[in-house]
């Protein structure tokens, strides 16, 4: 995690630059790395999506730009206030707070988008700017973390402290890992599977840290996993539903998302998807459903996505296409409640 004083410095610089332009009688302009899909390229080296060279200009003398320019600077001032007072805000809070300042966004999508602009402009992720998404996923396992947030400084927490797992929030995200007995991070898609794995003491059996993704993983969750991966040198395995959506949850953790391509240090290129894939559905004869049109269309899209160009991924897609079936993680329950832990995971994790 970068030092929290750095974003404050960057924000102040930005403010000074714009202010001096106004004082000189020039309408300020800023250039922001373009975040359109045309400007997103896959970087083979880091195996993640990054932004290309194209930039968009916001010119404050243009009446079409002035509103979003102003909104951007409001977010910057809001962020600076958060950081200076050690507070955080959810994206939803950000959207609602605007009203009081006469700023007013059309919808939350607009404030989210402008926050992404600010991230790209000053090259700090939103978590460093004090903003956290609402959707909280959870973590559980044998790790000791040390808090850095106000009022909890240097307090340590064992991530097995709650049988429900600990929510991944701003406090945990800014905490530093102290030590661990775990040898593996196992990220699972559904809450049901996460609870099952805690109950069955799977974390002891495989020496793993369990992470509940809750669908497409929030950035903060990806960030925390990346950090544990980097600092504790733990490999990451991802266990999802057996359908194109589950597969893509895994792929985003591994290679990055188009949405956050301007943010570095989110992807975990060495992470591994351990199913459920099409072959698993056949091999374990899992209860399954027919794929609908949306599923098939998604497979088509993914087959053309530059993140899926490798033979392995193409063949994973091809298998789903041939099978035209999908299965959930929970489908293993038909073989008894412990089947996943006793049979499936040992095979996959080895």
């Amino acid at each position, binding site marked *: 995690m970068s030092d929290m004083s750095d974003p404050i410095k960057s924000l102040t610089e930005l*403010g000074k630059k714009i202010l001096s332009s*106004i004082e000189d009688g020039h309408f*300020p302009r800023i250039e922001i790395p373009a975040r359109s899909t045309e400007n997103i390229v896959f970087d083979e080296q880091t195996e993640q999506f990054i932004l290309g060279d194209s930039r968009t200009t916001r010119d*404050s003398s243009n009446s079409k730009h002035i509103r979003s320019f*102003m909104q951007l*600077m409001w977010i910057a*001032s809001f962020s*600076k206030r958060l950081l200076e007072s050690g507070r955080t805000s959810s994206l939803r809070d950000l959207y609602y707070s605007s009203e009081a*300042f*006469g700023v007013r966004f059309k919808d939350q999508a607009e404030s989210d988008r402008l926050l992404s602009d600010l991230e790209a402009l000053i090259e700090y992720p939103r978590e460093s700017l004090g903003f956290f998404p609402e959707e909280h996923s959870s973590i559980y396992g044998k790790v000791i973390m040390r808090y850095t947030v106000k009022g909890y400084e240097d307090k340590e927490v064992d991530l097995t402290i709650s049988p429900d797992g600990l929510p991944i929030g701003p406090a945990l995200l800014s905490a530093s890992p102290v030590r661990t007995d775990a040898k593996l991070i196992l990220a699972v898609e559904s809450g049901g599977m996460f609870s099952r794995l805690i109950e069955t003491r799977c974390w002891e059996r495989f020496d793993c840290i369990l992470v509940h993704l809750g669908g497409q993983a929030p950035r903060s969750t990806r960030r925390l996993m990346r950090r544990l991966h980097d600092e504790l040198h733990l490999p990451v395995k991802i266990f999802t539903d057996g359908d194109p959506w589950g597969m893509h949850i895994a792929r985003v953790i591994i290679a990055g998302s188009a949405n956050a391509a301007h943010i570095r240090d989110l992807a975990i290129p060495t992470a591994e998807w351990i199913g459920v894939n099409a072959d698993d559905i056949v091999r374990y004869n899992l209860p399954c459903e027919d794929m609908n049109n949306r599923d098939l269309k998604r497979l088509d899209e993914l087959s053309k996505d530059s993140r899926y160009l490798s033979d392995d991924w193409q063949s994973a897609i091809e298998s789903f296409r041939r099978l035209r079936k999908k299965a959930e993680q929970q489908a293993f329950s038909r073989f008894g409640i412990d089947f996943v832990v006793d049979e499936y995971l040992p095979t996959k994790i080895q």
Partner: protein
Amino acid sequence: MTGSASGNFRGISPAEFFYRNRQMAGFENPTQSLYTTVRELVENSLDSCEEARVLPTVDVTIQSELGRTCTVSVSDNGTGVPDENVPNAFGKVLYGNKYSSRQRRGTFGLGVTMAVLYGQISTGTPAVIHTKTAQNEGNEYSVYIDIESNSPIVKSSNPLKRKERGTTVHITLNGDLKRSRERVIEYLRLTGISTPHARITLSLDDTERYTFGGFTKKIPSLPVDSLPHPHAADLELIRRLAAKNPDLRLHEFLVGSFQQLGHKTAEKFLNFIRMDPRATIGSLDREALSYLGNSLRKYDKFGKPSATCLSPVGKESFFNAIRKEFNATVIGYSQRGPLEWDGFPYIVEGVLAISDAFEQSDIPHLFRFANRVPLLYDSTDDVFAKTLKRIPWARYKPPEISGVAIFTHFCSIRVPYSAAGKQSITSVSSITSEILSLYRELGRKLKVFSEGKKRALHSRRKLKEFSRLFNLLAKFSSEVAGVDNIPDTSRMINELFEVDSDV
């Protein structure tokens, strides 16, 4: 028609004519008669001032007594009437020259004498005329008309000093001031529009006083007599002209009698109609004259008539007058012509204006003028009123603009009135199509104006919103920079919007 013009008139039998046709001349009842008397005297005064080349000052006084007896006094600073002309100018019903050769307010030359006659028969009183020319100190006359012989009876004539040159006429008549009050005021108000260099005052029974006109100090150039256009050559005109100089050869006769007919044109024309240019005009028989007249009217290679015989109000004067009288925003001026109808040169001009003073309606309110005289009645028969309804105003006029008026002025050496009351102009197809074009042009100007206004409003709103957003930008940037001072942005914003805010 006072002054020098009297030589062009010849007497007719006036009494019978007047009795039979008094409604035609505007003396049908006491209400109408009072209004017509004011009108004839004022127009007479304005014509006289025009000839004197002065800024007209016309003072109108109406005193009503015993109910229906009114005395109308109209005083001007015109040329004054020379002694020898007074009897005939006021005491003999004259018939005007039909072929008037320049724009005048009256057409028949009946005007003032009809009023004198009406006063005489309705109250038994003579007209009293106090006049001074540049050559004398002033005289006062009492004049009757001998109806039988159509000759003036000068009852008295006394030297009476008058300070300034000009004429004051008093006529006592049977009139209804209460009923004609509104129209007299309206008539004078509009006269101030079409003769904006004239200053007109009105005093009613010493209790009400009004001032009209006086909107400009510019005296319009005097329309000059001009030769008739060949397209006006009917048989009577040809015979009259021929009778003046019977010895002229045909070629010289044509060149000397008509405008737009020089030597080259005359040669081509006579060759075309195969008439001998050397034949003397007096030698031609009725048939040949008729053939000549027909040919002149039909030949389509004569030039457009000259406009020097006409006196349009003009854009600037029209605008000034309408702006001041109605507190109006003038939108546009349009002029068609000089053109000719049946050989008579004419110009149509129009102004479109917006004011709260105008009636709110889907179609513009219409103010009509002919030869600088406001037309107040019979609008349903009038070509300008009828044509106005043929324009799809909804296309030009946004609903948020109400109170639109159009002022039209038709000027010609001959106005095709639909009746002798001279209140409406009849439909002549060539004129109608020019009026349509005039209206459309004014309509387009209205449209451009309202769109410009919308744009201006829009850009004012835009400026306000931009300024709000930019000030917020400055404020938030100061906060981010950790600076307490928020820079002033007004100069930058005004510079940025300078072009737009002029709209």
